[in-house]
């Protein structure tokens, strides 16, 4: 780091942007209603400096920060400052469950805080530190900590550890902001999606769309569906609806603008390079086009389980071998932009007709159209749903024929109607303390099935229990821990649970030889004993009956 780039907190503005941000985070953490959260966000966006607002939008809509300091580095600094051994840091971390919080709680407490400077000042400083040596980082970060109270340290530590997850959806941010600037939420959502850098863009450009309207790569916010909660007949006339298979791949948008090509995942990650298969047909697509669909691994016309597609994600280089083993297809189901015009407001059947036309013109085996399932009444559709797994699908999608393509997760026009999950009874064998909300309770579990005389672990599951049940299981784990392996406790195999999952496939990486998809605890079977659990053979039977390739 040269002298010129060196930034220290003494150069920060005599302003309070950072404190405002901290009290926003604090308030959101304590708020217990959506209205309260919106009020806090609105207040914040009314009073915060512009540069801070841009950063806040960026952080709340999922832009990630570079991790400035590794855990071991932070542990070393804190241990040195406090003059205690690093194992004490580790014990503390294990208890608290959150790195930023552990550090904030361990540092010497300073009561009043109100550290000066704006959020943008701190982020500029962190940016300048990216290429600094560990010693330079230490000097700067220690300087920042000085004079911060615990909450300020916690928030600052979240910035340097690169992870910012708060109980606020990007939709809530968009909703508050849209109201404040009198803009349509969907329009604003579009402006805020895609690839922009909070350090480069100013607030006005961002929310008024001046800064990145010419950004060719920008995707639309995905329209997401809720699971159907009511009975199917509550949807009204079957003739108002279209049904499609629900695929279990990577939801994605493909974009062709100015003859440039982009592929986005639902997590708003640009994954263009991962799928060279699409090069075969992208040049034939008309320009000014955005399609929504599912990226699927398929062989012989049937989708492969997600676990297989997963072997391609994360690979930097896609080898020919991998392409042959896991051939990727794009299953298009919606048209969002055509000839450069936003088609989201058009009715679904119009969009689908145009989409059919485009895809049939190209006629390539790896560019597919998600087909409509024909049905005349709900009973007929229900029968289709029962055989979803045979098609390699996890259920149905129901879409209202006249629906527009909305932004975010909305009820009413689109519904997921998944198949009932597969279930199996298994016994709890390992437990580990949770993180975040569940720190210091044993809430992360591993379950096993019987294989002859042995127990074989087959799935990990976290969700699906009430707080009351979690506390009871936590007490059981503490009383019945047989062995310790670091944070993991081996417990007496006694508690039986019904584990539900969405998909099943063979796997070399799993001890049981089988991978299950989205495992979760569906029921605590207090009525069952260890001898009542299912066997590995039962699971293999499930695999055989549910296989689709």
């Amino acid at each position, binding site marked *: 780091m040269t002298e010129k780039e060196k930034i220290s907190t003494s150069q920060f503005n005599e302003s309070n942007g950072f404190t405002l941000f901290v009290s926003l985070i604090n308030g959101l*953490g*304590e708020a*217990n209603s959506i209205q309260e959260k919106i009020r806090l966000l609105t207040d914040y966006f009314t009073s915060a400096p512009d540069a801070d607002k841009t950063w806040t939008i960026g952080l709340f809509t999922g832009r990630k920060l570079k991790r400035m300091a590794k855990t071991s580095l932070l542990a070393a600094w804190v241990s040195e400052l*406090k003059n*205690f*051994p690093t*194992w*004490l840091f580790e*014990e*503390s971390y294990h*208890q*608290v*469950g*959150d790195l930023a*919080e*552990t550090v904030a*709680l*361990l540092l010497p*407490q300073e*009561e009043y805080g109100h550290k000066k400077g704006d959020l943008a000042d701190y982020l500029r400083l962190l940016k300048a530190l990216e290429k600094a040596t560990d010693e330079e980082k230490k000097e700067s970060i220690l300087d920042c900590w000085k004079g911060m109270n615990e909450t300020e340290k*916690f928030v600052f530590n979240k910035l340097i550890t690169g992870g910012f997850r708060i109980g606020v959806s990007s939709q809530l941010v968009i909703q508050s902001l849209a109201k404040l600037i009198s803009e349509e939420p969907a329009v604003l959502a579009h402006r805020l999606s895609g690839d922009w850098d909070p350090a480069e863009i100013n607030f006005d450009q961002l929310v008024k769309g001046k800064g990145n309207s010419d950004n060719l790569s920008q995707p639309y916010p995905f329209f997401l569906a809720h699971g159907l909660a009511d009975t199917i007949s509550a949807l009204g006339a079957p003739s108002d609806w279209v049904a499609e298979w629900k695929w279990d791949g990577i939801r994605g948008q493909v974009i062709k603008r100015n003859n440039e090509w982009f592929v986005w995942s639902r997590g708003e990650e640009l994954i263009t390079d991962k799928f060279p298969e699409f090069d075969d047909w992208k040049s034939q697509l008309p320009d000014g086009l955005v399609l929504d669909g599912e990226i699927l691994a398929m062989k012989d016309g049937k989708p492969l389980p997600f676990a297989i597609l997963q072997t391609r994600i994360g690979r930097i280089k896609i080898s020919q071998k991998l392409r042959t083993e896991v051939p990727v297809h794009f299953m298009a189901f919606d048209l969002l932009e055509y000839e450069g015009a936003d088609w989201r407001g058009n009715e679904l059947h119009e969009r689908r007709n145009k989409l059919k036309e485009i895809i049939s013109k190209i006629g390539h085996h790896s560019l597919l159209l998600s087909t409509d399932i024909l049905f005349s009444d709900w009973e007929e559709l229900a029968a289709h749903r029962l055989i979803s797994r045979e098609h390699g699908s996890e259920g149905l999608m129901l879409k209202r024929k006249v629906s527009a393509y909305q932004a975010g997760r909305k009820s009413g026009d689109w519904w997921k109607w998944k198949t009932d999950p597969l279930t199996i009874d298994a016994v709890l064998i390992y437990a580990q303390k*949770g*993180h*975040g*909300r*569940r*720190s*210091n*309770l044993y809430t992360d579990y591993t379950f096993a099935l019987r294989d002859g005389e042995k127990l074989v672990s087959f799935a990990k599951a976290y969700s699906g229990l009430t*707080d009351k049940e979690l506390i009871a299981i936590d007490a059981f784990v503490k009383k019945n821990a047989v062995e310790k392996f670091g944070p993991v406790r081996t417990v007496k195999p006694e508690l039986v649970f019904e584990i539900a999952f969405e998909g099943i496939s063979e796997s070399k990486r799993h001890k049981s030889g089988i991978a299950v998809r989205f495992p979760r605890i569906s029921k605590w079977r207090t009525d069952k004993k260890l001898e009542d659990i299912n066997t590995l053979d039962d699971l293999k039977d499930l695999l055989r009956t549910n296989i689709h390739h």
Partner: protein
Amino acid sequence: MLISFTDKGLFCEQGNFYIDPWKPVESAVITHAHSDHARSGHKNYFCHHQSKSLLRSRLGENEYQSVNWGEPVTRNGVRVSLHPAGHIIGSAQVRIEYKGEVWVISGDYKTTNDGISGEFEPLKCHTFITESTFGLPVYQWKPQEMIYNEMRDWVLRNQSQGISSVFHAYSLGKSQRIIDALRGFEGKIFVHGAIWQIQQALLSDGWKFPDTPRMSAEIPSDIRKGSIFISPAPIEQTTVAKLIGPYLSAGCSGWMQVRGNRRRGSTDKAFVLSDHADWNGLLSAVKETGAEKVFVTHGFQSVFSRYLNENGISAGEVKTHFGEEEE
């Protein structure tokens, strides 16, 4: 050893008495009136004057012998005296001396003076038996006045919106501190029956606390609205909830230091208010005793004893049945 660790509790064989035993014994020295330390079924209870009526209100009639701070009694050559532990009203450390050898059993304690529970008295000894409820350095408490201010601000903010404030607090210890913190709101503070009973025992002992009645329909509705209610249990779907109108709830405990616990706590608000020593308090207490040997009981035993061992104080872990109910 002057004290041995038995399945009934900490036992002084020479003096033939137990300290806070968890199974019925002949002669029990009681550090304080919390139920994990003061259990029923003993023949004789020995405690500080301030604990006596609390024990009686919780355990009924028994043979109670009480003494003043530092007032020694001798049992078969063993000199026993009680000294302030600062944990709750009447809470004591037990000092035991026999032929020049001194042991101190801390019971539960906090080293900062909360204004009602007595000021923790550092005692020199050869062997110190200490609790370790918050024996991890992430537990550092803010000054009491700051927390009390936060509590008062919260109540005021709720009142300005016509909302009542419900504090969840252990009936003995935390409740008295909350009542103390909320002086100035007299007339608006109401308590659960369990707390009311304890307040009666304290008031009859001459403690000066504001009057805190139980909540009832006879109280005018404009007083019930925006009031303060202190309860050991959640009040959801109780008559009280109906009587006090819209309310927000707060938990008060040292565990609230960690965000995960705050969120899991299912109250709307959390105050980090503890009746136990924090990490620094535990360390300074141990150092001030000058003890050569420390036994660490309930809490983060392994962490705290390891740390002491690495810092030249010989320490061992002892498993007890304490700490099962509080905070």
